[in-house]
């Protein structure tokens, strides 16, 4: 194949040099134009026509060229593959002994390719199909929505199932927690836990434990507990998991809120310093215990002192710490000198021990 320029456009892509050479020179433009026109119908058709047309041009019979192109087009209109075959065979049939053969050939191939005209039933099928397809197109968004709703309902069902499961766990966990709760915190505690439980039973399980510790250890006042819960519910509303973390005291925000709401100096912040201080003063290993442990240990035990969980006497923590220090020193002295172990029979021994430790001025 060679390319041809000029007015013939793309037809040069499938017209060979030898084909063009075989077309009479004065008819070459017509040849190229006609090939291009026919190839617009189908590329393969153009290729075949380009092969056959030169012999028709050589016969100098314009009527034959026109007849050939008309008949090829007529078949190509009903089936381009038949058209290609017809374009290939037709020039030979023009030279048949009986000039009617070519026309008869075209009619046979046309009928064979086109088939019988549509009957009413086919028309009805086609129409019904179009109608149904239209309806299906219209129904598709509804199907999608239905699927979405199914998923949403299934998720809610699972959520409700979880909720019932956690409510059941809360039912089992709450009584022993309540048994450990100090009576004076009961009303506030129940109110706050109920608020959380109605929002999310799983978070309520966490809140039940955390509020028990916060209230029993006096780390939060009743108002503080209510505010702490309210802030947690805000978090829970935005994100369940983060909210549960809040009530578990597992989030920084939760701790920050607690710190913000805390009133006074917490014992846990200074317990070790006070323990070391009391130990240094008394020369005994002194444990520091919070007031919440008072029910489980001897109030005047020989190895520990009991201090408030929070010191709230003063506005500033330095002075609250000094108050703790005074209480710790008092406790250390009680332990060192056995205040509550005093018996009259022990006086001589005590005086002797004090004299040995502090000199005659102690006696």
């Amino acid at each position, binding site marked *: 194949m060679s390319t041809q320029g000029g007015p013939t456009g793309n037809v040069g892509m499938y017209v060979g040099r030898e084909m063009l050479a075989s077309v009479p020179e004065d008819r070459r433009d017509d040849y190229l134009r006609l090939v291009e026109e026919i190839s617009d119908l189908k590329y393969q058709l153009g290729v075949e026509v380009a092969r056959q047309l030169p012999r028709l041009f050589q016969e100098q019979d314009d009527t034959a060229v026109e007849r050939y192109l008309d008949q090829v087009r007529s078949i190509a209109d009903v089936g381009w593959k038949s058209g290609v075959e017809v374009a290939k065979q037709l020039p030979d049939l023009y030279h048949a002994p009986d000039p009617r053969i070519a026309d008869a050939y075209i009619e046979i191939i046309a009928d064979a390719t086109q088939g019988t005209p549509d009957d009413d039933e086919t028309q009805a099928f086609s129409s019904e199909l179009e109608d149904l397809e239209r309806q299906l197109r219209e129904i598709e968004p509804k199907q999608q929505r239905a699927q979405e709703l199914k998923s949403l309902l299934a998720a809610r069902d699972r959520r409700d199932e979880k909720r019932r499961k956690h409510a059941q766990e809360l039912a089992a966990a709450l009584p022993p927690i309540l048994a450990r709760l100090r009576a004076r915190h009961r009303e506030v505690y129940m109110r706050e836990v109920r608020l959380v439980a109605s929002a999310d039973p799983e978070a309520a399980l966490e809140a039940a434990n955390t509020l028990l510790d916060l209230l029993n250890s006096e780390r939060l006042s009743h108002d503080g507990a209510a505010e702490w819960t309210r802030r947690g519910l805000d978090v829970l509303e935005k994100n369940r998991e983060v909210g549960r973390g809040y009530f578990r005291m597992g989030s920084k925000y939760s701790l920050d809120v607690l710190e913000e709401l805390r009133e006074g100096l917490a014992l846990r912040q200074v317990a*070790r*310093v*006070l323990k*070391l*201080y009391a*130990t*240094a*003063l*008394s*020369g005994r*290993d002194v444990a520091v215990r919070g007031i919440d442990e008072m029910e489980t240990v001897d109030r005047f035990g020989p190895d520990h002192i009991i201090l408030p969980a929070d010191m709230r006497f003063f506005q500033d923590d330095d002075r609250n710490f000094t108050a703790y*220090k005074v209480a710790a*020193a008092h406790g250390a002295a009680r332990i060192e000198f056995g205040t509550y172990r005093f018996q009259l029979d022990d006086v001589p021994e005590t005086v002797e021990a004090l004299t040995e430790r502090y000199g005659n001025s102690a006696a």
Partner: protein
Amino acid sequence: MAVETQRMEDFRLEAEPYYLPLGNEVELFEAAYAANLPVMLKGPTGCGKTRFVEYMSWKLGRTLVTVGCHEDLTASDLVGKYTLRGDETVWQDGPLTTAVKAGGIAYLDEVVEARKDTTVVIHPLTDDRRILPLEKKGEVVQAPDDFMLVISYNPGYQSVLKDLKHSTKQRFVALDFDYPTPDLEEVILQEEAGIDAETASKLVKIGEKVRNLRTHGLEEGVSTRLLVYAGQLIAGGVEPVVACEATICKPITDDLEMQRSILELVNTQF
């Protein structure tokens, strides 16, 4: 080859070091010296062991060679080694050899810190042979009668990995040291730091309370030496709480809560 030795007069104490006897340690030391017995001083850091040896050195009129032992100290460092001086190989006596030859007191401070091979050279000096073999030189130095070996040892620092063997311990007369009693420590503070009795009393009370924490997170209590430092800063015009924080709270622990509790003890006094 040449032999270099240090001038022994450099190791003689001219002035009497201040030392307040805490018990019968002076008499025991003198008796051990008279009997040619080596002495081991046991006690916590800063309780006066080194000052005691200095005092005894002065009292007995003997030179004192002190070796601060550390984990890289070898037997060669103690007895001596050959060194190059220009084109010449020179034998350099170690401090122990110097002390043995001069007949003074050799004091190995915190001997347990030194490498194990040092005990090999100590042993022959501590029994009735009283000799110091210089293996590299092929020589044995016989210790004169007035030579005395003293080691110090802090039982509080020892561990499974660092402890004196019994075969070493049982070659020494042991003198136990501890922090002085409050009344004696007050006298020491007044004398050493130049502070008044009231300030000394307060510092001693702080020391006493801090020492109560020895088994509660402190490896050792505050030493008399640190109390003296505190007193010296106070005598120099430093505010007492600041002086105590710098000399007592911070040197003995890095535990911030422990520091704070000690500072509270200081605040109780000042």
